[in-house]
């Protein structure tokens, strides 16, 4: 799609490209998902980290929406005394996990961290996040090309982003 011969051929090319992508996506989910992932793989998802709300961030990162799943165990404290350091971990029994991401709903930027889980790595991660105030922590697990989520509210007594 590098040559620009005129408006019509270019548009046809784009349409063809779009159709191809659509076919891939519909035909075979795992294979359809892998090229997209490979493209996103080496790059830092700058745009997703700039999104202010959670839904936009999930969209920017994965381009689709998640459904809640009870196969994800999100471990976070009920009450965090210090919002600057909130220990949060996720384990899941889902198969073919390719990535795990953490979102904090009411932080200035919702996306906190995103982890890529290559083949052979256990689908579990523990880390520490900052939370501005009492809000929901959402863990998104991408497994077999689909998104699953788990949510937990954490009460924060002292915010982690104050000045």
């Amino acid at each position, binding site marked *: 799609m590098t040559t620009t011969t005129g408006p019509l051929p270019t548009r046809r090319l784009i349409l063809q490209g779009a159709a191809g992508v659509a076919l891939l996506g519909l035909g075979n989910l795992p294979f359809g998902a892998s090229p997209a992932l490979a493209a996103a793989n080496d790059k830092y998802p700058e745009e997703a980290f700039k999104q202010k709300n959670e839904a936009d961030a999930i969209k920017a990162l994965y381009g689709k929406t998640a459904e809640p799943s009870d196969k994800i165990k999100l471990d976070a404290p009920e009450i965090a005394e210090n919002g600057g350091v909130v220990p949060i971990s996720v384990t899941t029994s889902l198969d073919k996990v390719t990535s795990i991401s953490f979102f904090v709903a009411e932080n*200035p930027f919702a996306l*906190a961290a995103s982890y890529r889980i290559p083949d052979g790595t256990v689908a579990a991660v523990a880390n520490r996040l900052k939370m501005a105030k009492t809000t929901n922590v959402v863990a998104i697990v991408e497994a077999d090309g689909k998104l699953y989520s788990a949510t937990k509210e954490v009460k924060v007594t002292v915010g982690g982003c104050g000045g």
Partner: protein
Amino acid sequence: MASSIRVRATANGDITEVQALIQHPMDTGLVKDSKGELIPAHYIQQLKFECNGKDVFVADWGTAVSKDPYIKFSFKGAKKGDELKISWTDNKGGSDTTTAKIA
């Protein structure tokens, strides 16, 4: 210079558990200092773990990861004595790399 990365990797059967602690300010760019001036954002964007020439774990981080980040994960396919390479880069172009032997 002492490394900013501290790692402990322990093999237990087929599974290797990795814990890492990195020294980094992880400034969000939203906090003011005592003079009322904004402290510019300074945070790790990518953290990579490699073992036997293969990425075993890649973290993309935003500013909401706590100061001096901690991370724990496990992976399969390594054994005692294998080398684990850890590297990070931050938004100001800073980086650090270290290796650890799996115990």
